[in-house]
């Protein structure tokens, strides 16, 4: 088993009066696609936001310990943490400006790159996200002219440009057509060896397709986690089974 990339111990997350995550204990290993399934409001997105400390901005109270490569994330400078642990949101939002600018905005803040290095970075990121062929001639066009699926892949490229270690995806394909969805899933599979993916999805079939291991969340609790094959064929908890077969959604 590869080493433990992220170790979550006794994590509790409280928002105002809402107990969004209850006593989560979870290990995520390097170079896997870790999928998280569960109905709405089960705490899936909150978990992602706790991992890159975006939850701090929501005014949430985070108790417990989260470690990245053995270091408590509270001890890592937050900007560095967010570079290493990237987040793709459910709705693709491109920053105002050109495609090129979208990609280089983040990296420029972390490092001094030469123009040549930036160009290479843009090529590398767009190619990894499977978008290079489609936009290589219009890098200086406004990013808002892209289709929904292209914009989401641009967001993935944007994150890859930071050379992260973990890429978290929060329901990345929720508004997209099947072709774009397939492209994004293929991207994840192709990049699995370079990054660790955490995929939150409300599409159980997607988790079944590409997840290495899968976790089931319900009402803020981690009900069950196992290899994808095992979770989907022989779940140990009845609630997991009910969710998977669609008894509730």
């Amino acid at each position: 088993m590869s080493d433990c990339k992220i170790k979550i111990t006794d994590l509790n997350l409280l928002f105002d009066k809402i107990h969004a995550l209850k006593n989560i204990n979870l290990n995520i290993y390097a170079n896997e696609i870790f999928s998280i399934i569960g109905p709405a409001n089960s705490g899936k997105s909150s978990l992602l936001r706790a991992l890159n400390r975006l939850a701090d901005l929501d005014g949430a109270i985070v108790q417990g310990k989260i470690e990245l490569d053995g270091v408590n994330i509270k001890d890592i400078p937050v900007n560095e943490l967010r570079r290493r642990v990237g987040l793709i949101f459910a709705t693709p939002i491109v920053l105002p400006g050109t495609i090129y600018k979208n990609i280089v905005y983040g990296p420029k803040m972390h490092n001094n790159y030469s123009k040549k290095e930036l160009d290479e970075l843009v090529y590398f990121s767009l190619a990894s996200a499977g978008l290079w062929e489609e936009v290589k001639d219009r890098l200086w066009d406004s990013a808002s002219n892209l289709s929904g699926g292209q914009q989401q892949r641009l967001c993935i490229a944007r994150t890859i440009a930071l050379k992260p270690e973990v890429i978290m995806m929060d329901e990345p394909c929720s508004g997209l057509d099947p072709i774009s969805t397939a492209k994004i899933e293929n991207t994840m599979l192709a990049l699995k060896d370079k990054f660790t993916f955490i995929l939150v999805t409300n599409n159980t079939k997607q988790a079944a397709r590409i997840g290495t291991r899968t976790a089931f969340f319900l009402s803020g609790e981690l009900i069950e986690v196992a290899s994808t094959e095992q979770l989907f064929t022989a779940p140990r908890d009845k609630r997991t089974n009910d969710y998977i077969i669609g008894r509730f959604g």
Partner: protein
Amino acid sequence: MKFRIGPRTSQIIAYIFLLVCTIFVIFILIFIIAFVFKNGFSSLTWEFLTQKTKEMGKEGGIFPSIIGTILVTLFAIVVATPLGLGSALYLTEYTRGGLVRRLISFGADCLAGVPSIIFGLFGFIFFVITLKLGWSIISGGLTLAVMILPTIIRTSEEAIKAVPKSYREISYSLGVGKIDTILKIVLPTAFPGILTGIILGIGRAVSETAAVIFTAGSSLNIPTSLFSSTRTLAVHFYILAREGISMPKAYGTAMVLIISILVINFIAYRLMHRFIARYY
């Protein structure tokens, strides 16, 4: 037999009445502008705009006042914009509610309601007398800066709030810090709205009389330094009109004033609409 007006009829009567009122109000505006233009048009010559004022305004042009107005207004903007923008940034990016926010908003709202003569009194006793700045562009500019501060705070706040929250979240997720996010994403995006506020502030400053006459004075000389006294266009117009010095010159000055205001408002209006169209 009682005579009853049915609801349909009352509506027609009401509609006509309201329409007439609205047309009347618009007519007033157009009338004022047209009247000033008609009478001032003949005075609007190149000499009028570029010559020094002679014989207390009876002869010559309004060049000193044009310069004075520009300088005072510029000074006011240079002082008020950082203060107003900074306040607006703090209000939107750094507070969430609570005492500090309410205090700052309260200060800005109250300041907005203070009449211009009070600003004149204050500017006079504080800048001119106490701080010994005398009747000068500085005194006038500082007084006007305090006057337009609420306008800039309000419009900047609206503009910054209009920047989608998701832009900020994305920036943070990319590991970019708060200051850089504000400088590279929030401010550039909010810029047209902020600029609108600045331009509206310019409009207010240009029209102002009571606050300026007691702080910048009424000297007819071309200002030579920031400590020179100067007579702005509005003040000059007031003196010409009230003392009955020269009707044609008064109309001419009024026309320059109104044209400036129209241009300023038009620019602000167009900017605002481009901004709203982009984000709503």
